[in-house]
Structures are given as structure tokens and as C-alpha cells.
């Protein structure tokens, strides 16, 4: 007897569908009323809710003019666990935003090494433009060959770029995440942490100063990571964004067509729904590509609403936030009492 997915499988696998009204095909004898569907959707939401911390504060926009987003891969600016909503918000509030893609992404996609690299780079440029980012800098380290080169060389490049672009805010992967199997995330997150510290020290790579840059200390860090992967990443803040920024996040996510929103996913969902005599009215008159995009958008909306709800806002993303003087905990109280605005 072959495996046949039931309704729970469908809803668990495609949390995005809880945004849609799944209907019973009237020609079928299987009944699934709307109350049952809503109940199942609630169950999915309830199951996901404990995976993130509840009752988090909603963060203010940090002061500054430049945000740097160093990430391992082409598509890490817009994920179900963060970045794009906050990037769009910062851009709308006047920040200059620059994306750093550490790897060449040759593994990600269906086209083989060099073509994947080229397609993924092009799609990155299109996607970050939607968010209002200025440009992408590709470091082109070989994708998932991180142990094959000296990580201090990657760190040095990040130090240089921090000195060159002088970011006030850095959005990166939280290097302290547990159970991260993708070495790119772990290594870039880890190197970024050190680079932020060392970029401010004159004796770290003094050769950079021959190129006209100066030491620079970025002040605010937002780290993203999977909320479902152990205790290493426990967010301490939610960053809210508006409906327009949410729409741009959805677009930036699904524009990475080499790896996302593929028509085959839509075909698979429709096939599984049909086996249970279910259908989604919103899918009618759409082709598989359009359905795949629609589902990707629902997925991103669903997760932004879920994370936003942890701070009582409509759309949000959860981060581990390090403030301006996080590394000086002994002086926090003194600063609060004695620091003045000129």
C-alpha cells in the first residue's frame, strides 16, 4: 500500500496553505468543511508558535545611514527566517544598503556549476533591487568548499568591506546558531563576528590603510538563524515592517527562480490535493508557475505574520540583536546615567 498524504500532511508541509481557503471538490464524497480547515490551520499555527520566543519587544530603527548585509549565499537576503522585511524598512527610512554574497552559489540550482553561479548572481541583482539595495558584492568563494581555504582570508575581505562602506548596521547570520549543517552559514557568520570587532582595530590588517580606508566599528548587529534548530539562536527582538515592505519581501524571495517558486512544486501540491478531492479556488485559471509564486508569497506572508505576532505587530522578523555597547556590559549603567547629547 503506497503512501497517501492526509490533510494534516498537506497543511504541515505547506504552512502557506493555511492562508488559503482549501475547498472540497463538490464532485467528491469527501467532506471537509471550512470549520475543519480553519481548525487545522490553527493547529499548524499552534505547532509553530512555540518554536519562537514569545513576547519579544518590537525594535526601533537604529540610528545611521548605511546597512551592510554580508551573507553566504545569493538568496539569504530574503528568507522565511528573516532579513528582507528589515532591509526594506531600513532602505525606506533612508539607509544605503549593500549586499555581500560570500560564495559563488555554484551548487544551488539545476544547471551545473558555472551556469548556476551566473543565474544566481543575476537573480540576486534583480531581487535586491526590489528591496532597494544599491548593489551586490560577490566574493565568489567556492560554494561549500569552505574548509578548503583559509577562513582568515574571508575575514580579511569582510574587514576591508566594513572599513570601506562604514556601516552603522550589519545584518548577518547568527554564527552561534546550533545544528547548522550548511558550513557556509556557520563560517560566514563566524567570520563576520570577528570582522566586526577587528575592523575597528588599527593593527588588524594595517595594509588596508594604503587603500584609503580607516578603522571602522559598526554599532548595531541583527543576527538571523533558523528558529527551529536548537537553543543557540534565541531571538531577543522583533523588527516590524509594513504591508508594502512585506510585498517586496515576497517578490525578492520568489525572484530567485533558479531555486524557488518552481512550477513542479505547484504541480505536486495540486496532485496531492486532488488525491483528497480538495482544491484551492485561488489556483483556478493560474498556471503552475503562477501558483508556485502565489504559494511562495503566502508562505512569506504567513511567517512574517507569525513572527510579528510575537511582538503584537502585523508583520515582523525575529533577530538576535546586539546593541551599540553590548560588549561593555559593565559600563551600560554608567552610560545610561552619564551619556549626553551634544
Amino acid at each position, binding site marked *: 500500500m503506497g503512501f497517501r498524504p492526509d490533510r494534516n500532511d498537506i497543511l504541515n508541509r505547506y504552512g502557506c496553505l493555511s492562508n488559503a481557503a482549501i475547498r472540497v471538490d463538490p464532485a467528491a464524497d469527501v467532506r471537509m468543511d471550512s470549520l475543519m480547515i480553519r481548525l487545522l490551520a490553527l493547529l499548524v499555527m499552534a505547532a509553530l508558535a512555540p518554536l519562537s520566543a514569545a513576547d519579544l519587544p518590537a525594535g526601533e530603527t537604529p540610528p545611521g545611514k548605511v546597512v551592510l548585509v554580508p551573507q553566504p549565499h545569493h538568496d539569504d537576503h530574503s528568507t522565511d527566517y528573516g532579513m528582507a522585511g528589515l532591509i526594506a524598512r531600513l532602505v525606506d527610512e533612508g539607509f544605503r544598503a549593500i549586499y555581500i554574497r560570500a560564495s559563488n552559489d555554484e551548487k544551488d540550482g539545476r544547471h551545473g556549476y558555472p551556469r548556476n553561479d551566473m543565474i544566481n548572481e543575476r537573480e540576486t541583482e534583480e531581487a535586491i533591487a526590489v528591496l532597494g539595495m544599491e548593489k551586490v558584492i560577490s566574493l565568489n568563494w567556492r560554494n561549500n568548499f569552505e574548509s578548503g581555504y583559509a577562513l582568515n582570508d574571508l575575514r580579511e575581505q569582510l574587514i576591508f568591506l566594513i572599513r570601506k562602506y562604514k556601516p552603522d548596521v550589519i545584518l548577518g547570520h547568527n554564527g552561534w546558531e546550533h545544528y547548522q549543517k550548511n558550513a557556509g552559514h556557520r563560517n560566514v557568520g563566524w567570520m563576520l*563576528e*570577528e570582522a566586526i570587532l577587528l575592523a575597528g582595530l588599527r*593593527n588588524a590588517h594595517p595594509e588596508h590603510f594604503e587603500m584609503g580606508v580607516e578603522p571602522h*566599528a559598526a554599532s548595531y548587529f541583527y543576527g538571523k538563524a533558523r528558529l527551529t534548530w536548537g537553543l543557540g539562536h534565541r531571538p531577543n527582538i522583533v523588527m516590524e515592517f509594513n504591508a508594502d515592505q512585506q510585498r517586496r519581501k515576497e517578490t525578492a524571495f520568489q525572484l530567485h527562480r533558479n531555486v524557488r517558486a518552481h512550477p513542479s512544486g505547484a504541480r505536486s501540491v495540486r496532485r496531492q490535493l486532488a488525491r483528497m478531492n480538495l482544491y484551492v479556488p485561488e489556483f483556478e485559471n493560474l498556471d503552475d508557475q503562477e501558483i508556485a509564486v502565489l504559494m511562495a508569497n503566502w508562505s512569506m506572508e504567513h511567517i512574517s505574520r507569525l513572527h510579528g505576532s510575537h511582538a503584537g505587530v502585523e508583520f515582523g522578523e525575529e533577530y538576535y540583536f546586539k546593541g551599540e555597547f553590548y*560588549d561593555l556590559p*559593565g559600563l551600560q*549603567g554608567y*552610560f545610561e546615567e552619564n551619556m549626553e*547629547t551634544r
Partner: protein
Amino acid sequence: MTRRILAFVSLIFLAAVAPLAAQIGETNNTVVVITSDASNYVLHAGGTVAKMVEDGMEGILIRIGNDEKDSWDLSPEETALRTKQESEAAAKILGISKVISLGFRSSDFRDVPFTTMRDRLAYYIRVHKPRVLFIPNPHTQYDRNHDRYYGGRAAEDAWRAAAFKNYLPAMKDVNLGAHVTPEVYYFAPLVDPARREPESTGTFVPQPKMTDISGTLEKKIKAAQALKTINHSLAMRLKQRLDSTDRRLPLLDSVDEASINKLVEQRVRGLARLSAEGTDFQAAEEFRYAGVEYRIPASYR
């Protein structure tokens, strides 16, 4: 029947730890402090080390890194030299009688082979046969100075390796046999939000431990102030940051020795207050502690 099984398991366990336990009697009344960088142990363990020395222990400091990066306007060489001298001065204030500087290049520990660093440390553990060891906690999170992770990892394994005869076997010929250090304090900056959460019971993992440093706080402040190069760097970077964002700390309007010392005093007192939260102490330091419970559960002692 259950009691018999328990007794049997206890015997097996004791037989297993007996060769280790036998070594514990050979310890010197010495505390060895291993630090990746000059300031970390002073700020996060200095008060406790000073108290142990006041109580009669001999203190030995091992500096893994050369601290060449952290200065405001000095070359790496000058920075390393000055910080070495200032580390020796700070250690002296805490009562530490000997400072060993290994000279690994700071911020580049990742590129040092793990066993190279570990074996250097294991050697010194065997030479000094400490009763107490202080090491950077490699399991702490959110510390951007990763030398503390790599140095702490090497130190933690050196603690273990020093206790087994088959590590560094050549040293047997010069009478440097295995040594078990019975107590280890893991220290770390207070930036890990989970730093006070026990990860398991004391039998399996080092436990959170707070120590009272009220009696040695002034000594700790003076030791921290002795690290003049690092402190000047911190004060200048802080002032630059405040100036660039139209803010000021009146204390740093003029950055001189007096203002820097005051800033350092505030920092050390603030750390002591933070660590004292939730305790009856006025001033404290916090650690992960591996003592006798970590080696032999109370039910077996």
C-alpha cells in the same frame, strides 16, 4: 538486587577513576590562569584569583596571545611589548608570582594547529601541577573575540591531556608525568544570555558558580587599570564613537590617565555588580565550575 547492581556499578566507576584520583594528591598549592588575551582574565576572574593568592596559593599566569592588535596608535610590535609589560604589572597586583607569555599572534589563533597550542599548555600544567586552573570558556556564546574560543578549547583539552600519560610521553624522562587538576573555573565576558543556565547536572557539565570578590575588588580595579595600552585604546575608540554621533561622556572630554582609570573603575565595578545579581554578595564574579562533583558524584564519594 538493585542495590547489588548499584554497588557493582559504583565499584566499576571507582576503579575507572582511581588512576586519575591517585594523581590528585600530588598537586601543588598553585592556581594556574590561562588567558587568551591580557584583559579577559583580569576583568572576569581577577578578583577570585587574587583571593586565592591571598589565601595562600601561588599564582601563575599563562598568556597565550601577544595582544598586538589592541592599541590606539602604536605599531603591533610596540603594542605587544607594552601589553606584555603591563600584563606583568597587572598580574603582580593580583599577587601572581610568574607570567609566562607564549606569544601566539593575537586574532590569528584559528590558524595555529590545535595540538600545538594544547601541548604547550599541557606542558605548563605538568610543570606547575596546579590545584586550580582558570581557563577561557570555549562554550560561551556571543563573544566576538574568537581567540577566547580557540584558546579556551586548547586549554580545556590541555587540562584533560595533561592527566594522561600517553600525551607528551617524552616528558616522562624529565619527570613530568601526568597531572590531574582537580578544580577548573571557566571564565567569560558577561555577554552570553544563557550563561547562568546549567546545561546538565554537576556530574556531567561544569556548573554556574558565583564567587564573592568584595575583599579583592580594589585590587582587581588596580590590576585592570595597569593595562594602560588596552584601556587607552578602549577610551579613544569610545570617544571617537561618541563624537561621531554627537554625544559625550563628560569623563572623556579629556582623555588622560585619570579619566581612563576612572572609566576602567566604573567598568570593573559594573561587572562586579552584574555578577552579584541574584546573590548575597556586593561584588562577584561568575564562572562555570568543574570541581570534585564533576569527577566523582557525591553518591560515590
